[in-house]
């Protein structure tokens, strides 16, 4: 069943409220999950479970957490993601807006990259198959 963008945002918003204990109005499309909404690493697992249930989808771990890329010496040098690494990230996460990260691609910056809007795009790509 096709869901509208508003419907996806509404359900993502609900999942984030439940998982992070945030208020509905804090969950804006631009809000970053870590910096603005206070998500910690364990919360991502919770968010995954809630989205899987809410949208009846399966979320393979590596799709939302490309740790294998960020710890691969082929793609990271001196704590900075290389051009090849960025390409790999874009392939893995075509739904994410990586433009900000590209300007300063330190691995440590990756943690605070994902926004609510990215998450909605990801879910949208899964729901549409």
């Amino acid at each position, binding site marked *: 069943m096709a869901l509208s963008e508003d419907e996806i945002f509404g359900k993502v918003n609900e999942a984030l409220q*439940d*998982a992070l204990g945030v208020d509905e109005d804090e969950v804006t499309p631009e809000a970053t999950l870590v910096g603005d909404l206070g998500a910690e690493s*364990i*919360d991502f*697992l*919770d968010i*995954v*479970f809630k989205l*899987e*249930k809410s949208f009846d989808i399966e*979320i393979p*771990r590596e799709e939302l957490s490309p740790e294998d890329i960020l710890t691969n010496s082929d793609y990271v040098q001196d704590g900075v993601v290389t051009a090849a690494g960025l390409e790999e990230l874009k392939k893995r996460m075509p739904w994410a807006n990586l433009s900000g990260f590209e300007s300063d691609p330190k691995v440590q910056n990756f943690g605070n990259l994902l926004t609510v809007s990215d998450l909605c795009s990801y879910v949208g790509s899964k729901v549409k198959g």
Partner: protein
Amino acid sequence: MRWFWVDRFTEFVSGSHAKAIKTVAMDEECVDEYLPTYPVLPPTLIIEGMAQLGGILLAEHFEFRKRLVLAKVGKATFHAPARVGDQLFYEAKLDGIQDNGGTIEGVSTCDGEVQAEISLMFACLEGSDIVDGPLYAAEDLHAWLLSLDFYSVAVGANGQRFPRYAAFQTADSVPAPT
């Protein structure tokens, strides 16, 4: 210190659900101080009991090979106190499973009424997260499961009784189910 917050498994279906009994007794020290002169099992220990039941349910799904910890109490709603003399019936249902954790939905019932509803999330420790090595000795878990009647009631999804787990290879043989 004893830290066993369920008394006996009554049902266990691999990958699906588990049921257990917890009887609240006056000789438990924990009932004295929570509400003086009104001895109850503190709600936190009902959460702990549900975590032990649900934790075993999920750990068994992973054949006891992963280091599983309670990571989050998603919800815990208590509708009635668990008074001394009460027998609580816990049921945990496996809800979500990932290779690095899972969730369960738990319900505690007393005298046919829902006493508590509890949602829990568990995560698998990786590498040297928190501590290196196993969180407990395999033989201790094995002995605990024996004490809880686990092997008497547990069946796989196909209704067959469980074989031994590879993770318990160092433990004594599991008695053959009757």
